[in-house]
C-alpha cells in the first residue's frame, strides 16, 4: 500500500518536474542569435566563447582550449577537484580497511 502510494507520488512529481523543466528550458533553445556581437554585458555563452577563441591561445599558450581553461583560467576548480580525489581515495581506503 505504502509502496504504491510512493510510486504514484513519484510519477506525479516527475511529471510535474518534467513539465516545469520543459516549460522553462525549451524557449532558451528555440533560437540562436545570429549576430554574436550584439549580445550585451556577458549576456550569453557566446561572448565567453568568442573571447576564448580570439585570445585564448595567445594568453595561455595552449592550443587545446579545454586544457587552457581547465588548467589556466579555471585552475582553482582543478585544485579543488584533485583535493576531492585525494579525500575520496583516503575515504575508500578507510572504509575498505586496506592499509
Amino acid at each position, binding site marked *: 500500500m505504502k509502496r504504491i502510494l*510512493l*510510486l504514484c507520488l*513519484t510519477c506525479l512529481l*516527475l511529471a510535474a*518536474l*518534467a513539465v516545469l*523543466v*520543459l516549460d522553462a528550458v525549451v524557449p532558451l*533553445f528555440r533560437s*540562436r542569435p545570429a549576430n554574436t556581437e550584439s549580445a550585451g554585458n556577458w549576456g550569453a*555563452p*557566446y561572448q*565567453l*566563447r568568442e573571447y*576564448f*577563441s580570439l585570445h*585564448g*591561445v595567445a594568453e595561455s599558450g595552449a*592550443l*587545446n*582550449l*579545454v586544457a*587552457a*581553461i*581547465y588548467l589556466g583560467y*579555471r585552475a582553482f*576548480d*582543478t585544485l*579543488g*577537484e584533485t583535493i*576531492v*580525489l585525494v*579525500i*575520496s*581515495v583516503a*575515504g*575508500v581506503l578507510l*572504509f*575498505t580497511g586496506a592499509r
Partner: protein
Amino acid sequence: MAGAIILILILTGIAGVVLVDNLIKKVMSLVILNSAIVILFVWSGSLTGSEAPIMLAGARDIVDPLPQAIMLTDIVIGICVTAVALAIVLRIYERWGTVSRRKLEKLMNENDD
C-alpha cells in the same frame, strides 16, 4: 532529439534513485544522473559552434570550451562520490549481508527496540 534523451536520462535517474530497492542500483542511478548532467552541458555547449576547441590553423567556429572544461571537473567528482558510496555499500553489505533498503531499515528498527 538530444534534449529528449537527456530528459529521459534525468527522469530515469531520479526514478531509479527513489524507487529502486537495491542500494547499488541507487548508486548507479546517481551515476546516470551525473552522466545526464555532463551530456546536457556538453550538448548545450556544442550548439554554439561546429568545430572542436583545438585551435589548429583554420579553426574558427569552435564550440564553447567552458562547459567541456568544467564537466571534466564534474566527471572526476562524480567518480569520487561513486567510489565512496560503493565503499560504504560494501561495508554495509559486509555487516548486514544485504543491500536491500527495505530489509536494512527493518533491521535497523528492530535493533532499536
